[in-house]
């Protein structure tokens, strides 16, 4: 299935990418997709491997690591928010 990924703030800047479309296995969760990004190695591993703090939103709704991602969804990944 196709999933659009968005990266914000430190992630966007470190990766040098703000969006991409990936192929993910049907039934993937947010955690599965984060793991697949970490497997790219290098900076991807640094940002997304292990217990690093990653927040996620699916179609602009906050999601948890266990949330299921559907074909055509937009998954945004970002560091903990720091507004206010």
């Amino acid at each position, binding site marked *: 299935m196709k999933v659009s990924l*968005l990266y*914000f*703030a*430190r992630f*966007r*800047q470190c990766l040098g990418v703000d969006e991409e479309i990936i192929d993910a296995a049907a039934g993937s969760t947010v955690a599965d997709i984060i793991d697949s990004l970490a497997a790219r190695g290098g900076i991807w591993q640094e940002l997304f491997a292990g217990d690093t*703090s990653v*927040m996620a*939103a699916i179609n*602009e709704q*906050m999601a948890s690591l266990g949330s299921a991602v559907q074909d055509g969804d937009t998954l*945004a990944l*970002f*560091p*903990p*928010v*720091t*507004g*206010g």
Partner: protein
Amino acid sequence: MDTALLDTLITQVPLDVQTASDWLHAEAGASGAVVMFSGLVRGEQGEVDTLTLEHYAGMSDRVLEQLAADVASRWPLQRVLAWHRVGSMSVGEVIVLVGVTAAHRQEAFLAASCLMDMLKTRVPLWKKVNGPQGEQWVEARDKDLQAAQRWL
């Protein structure tokens, strides 16, 4: 209870404290209490020249509006205002304005405090400081998460 009026905004334009204050004071008589909070860019003894706020456009507006509505459903409020600036701003400029009006001060203080705590931990906004040492993304603080937890 009548539904509270909500005014939420995320903008690159400098926030006008007077306009916000005027809106909050427009129903003097019905509301006995107005509480307004302004968050400003701190200079940190010369360590900060400018602050840049990035946001997830679309989602940030919706989350802010939802938080204002949540607070309005929790306390008897007449008006709820939540404005947040994005983009680049200088030391001393207003980053955020939160205000509520209520019949009495207790619920106004509580609601404003709750809205601010939730805003800091829920709205997809990120700060980057720019100063003599270069630029750096601000890290989220446990203290802010704990402050938000007490309202759940």
